[in-house]
């Protein structure tokens, strides 16, 4: 209770970190819903890695003297680097998946390991960015300025708003592409817009909480929600609620036990997933028994 009181105090020193955690917990599952439904989970692993590689590259440009080292603009530069790497990759990968041929998992796996390897190489050759980047990769959310928070909130707010406003178009082109074509929808445009939003959300999340935590929030809350949702509204609401509540609870636990916030969040999400799976299996067993007791014919 004491920890909760401290975290909820308006003068709490790490309040911006709490807000960032909540924003990631709220928005990443919403984006993750589409990755899960379109069976692009592997993309959810590869893209945060690409994004962090973009951040490492931007820090390296500063270290190599190609762009000036401005401490106050570091976050904005890192976001640009992350976005410049993530958006073309997501568009290219989705295009290759759409056209088929070859192994999609193989391509994503290659992107993942190459991005990881490049991040490390850029990191070890860059004394300027090493500390900040290591914190990011570990999922530390400690020093968040008001400007960083505002940028993150604006980006996530935009992503959420566009996903909400065009939800029926995104759902139609994702679920039944052929139907969308017969209804004269511009499928390529809606696909591109959706991937742009996914890319933006991932870029910003990686910058805030690192690739591991981003992937955790992209994947686990939608998987939990998928077990219980009876329609798309429930799916999005449950995923976002699980993400937000876990982010808050994870922050409190990490603060209380002096753990890094990101990994604590992911472990907590894993525990919730395990518990939800048990409940879901139990409910399924009960339903099967009831159905065998009172069978009904369906046509």
């Amino acid at each position, binding site marked *: 209770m004491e920890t909760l009181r401290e975290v909820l105090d308006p003068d709490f020193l790490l309040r911006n970190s709490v807000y960032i955690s909540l924003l990631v917990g709220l928005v990443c599952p919403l984006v993750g819903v589409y990755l899960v439904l379109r069976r692009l989970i592997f993309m959810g692993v590869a893209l945060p890695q690409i994004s962090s590689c973009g951040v490492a590259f931007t820090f390296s440009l500063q270290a190599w003297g190609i762009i000036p080292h401005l401490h106050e603009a570091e976050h904005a530069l890192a976001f640009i680097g992350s976005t410049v790497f993530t958006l073309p990759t997501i568009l290219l990968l989705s295009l290759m998946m759409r056209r088929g041929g070859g192994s999609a998992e193989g391509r994503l796996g290659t992107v993942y390991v190459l991005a990881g390897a490049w991040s490390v190489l850029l990191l070890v050759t860059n004394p300027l960015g090493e500390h900040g980047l290591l914190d990011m990769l570990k999922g530390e959310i400690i020093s968040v300025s008001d400007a960083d928070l505002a940028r993150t909130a604006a980006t996530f707010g935009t992503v959420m708003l566009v996903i909400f406003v065009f939800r029926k178009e995104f759902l139609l082109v994702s679920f039944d592409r*052929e139907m969308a074509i*017969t209804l004269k929808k511009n499928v390529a445009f809606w696909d591109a817009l959706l991937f742009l939003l996914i890319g933006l959300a991932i870029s910003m999340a990686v910058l805030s909480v690192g690739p591991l935590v981003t992937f955790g929030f992209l994947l686990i809350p939608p998987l939990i929600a998928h077990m219980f949702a009876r329609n*798309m509204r429930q799916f999005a609401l449950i995923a976002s609620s699980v993400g937000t509540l876990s982010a808050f609870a994870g922050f409190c636990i990490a603060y209380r036990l002096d753990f890094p916030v990101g990994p604590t969040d992911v472990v907590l999400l894993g525990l919730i997933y395990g518990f939800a799976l048990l409940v879901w299996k139990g409910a399924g067993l009960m339903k099967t028994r009831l159905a065998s007791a009172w069978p009904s014919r*369906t046509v």
Partner: protein
Amino acid sequence: MIKHPVLILEHLAVGYGRRVVLPDVNLRLERGSFTGLLGANGSGKSTLLKTLLGILPPLGGRFVLEPLNGRLPVLGYMPQRESLDPIYPLSSFEIVLMAACGRVGPGRLISKEEREFARQCLAETGAAELAPKLFSQLSGGQKQRVLMARALATKPDFLLLDEPTAGIDAHATRAVMEALKRIHAQHGQTVLLVSHDLATVRQYAKEVIWLHEGKVLHGAVDELLTRDKIEELLSLELR
């Protein structure tokens, strides 16, 4: 009686990529007709249907959808149910509501009237009670009736159905086809039904298009689905 065509195909070539499945299709469908599109697996039934729907580009020739009251006819499409991924937690009502996307602009809310119309369409196909149920958990026949309701909810002038009775039992086939017959009688849309089920086409369609080894035959069911004609087409001994 003057007949108005709704669809004219002139030397139409269809296929995937560079692979031509049907090299030269010439036919016309009259408004309000009920036509069965028959053929063995791989004969090009679904390819032809997808070309007419604009999903696949024609590889040659052309097809014309004749305007109706000064506008292009609205196409209602019922895909094969296996083509829809069961991972989506969509209720049957949400599936039918998708049809409203053709009339409701991007970003606009779906009105109460559209929702009510979606419920009516579900009722017309005998699937009203399925509205809140998860589509992925329905039986084959139930799914087909929901998909038919969705096709109907596009307010179509021309209904194109891809194997609506494939993989479902005789009882469910009858329920689906009777619903289609009732809808056709009530609304008078042109219907093009893809099937490899000869008995179903014979019972419900008035005309038939038969695809066989790249050839296309078009005629009345009574003329084309006779024993002699089928023997000749399939080169089979039915005795």
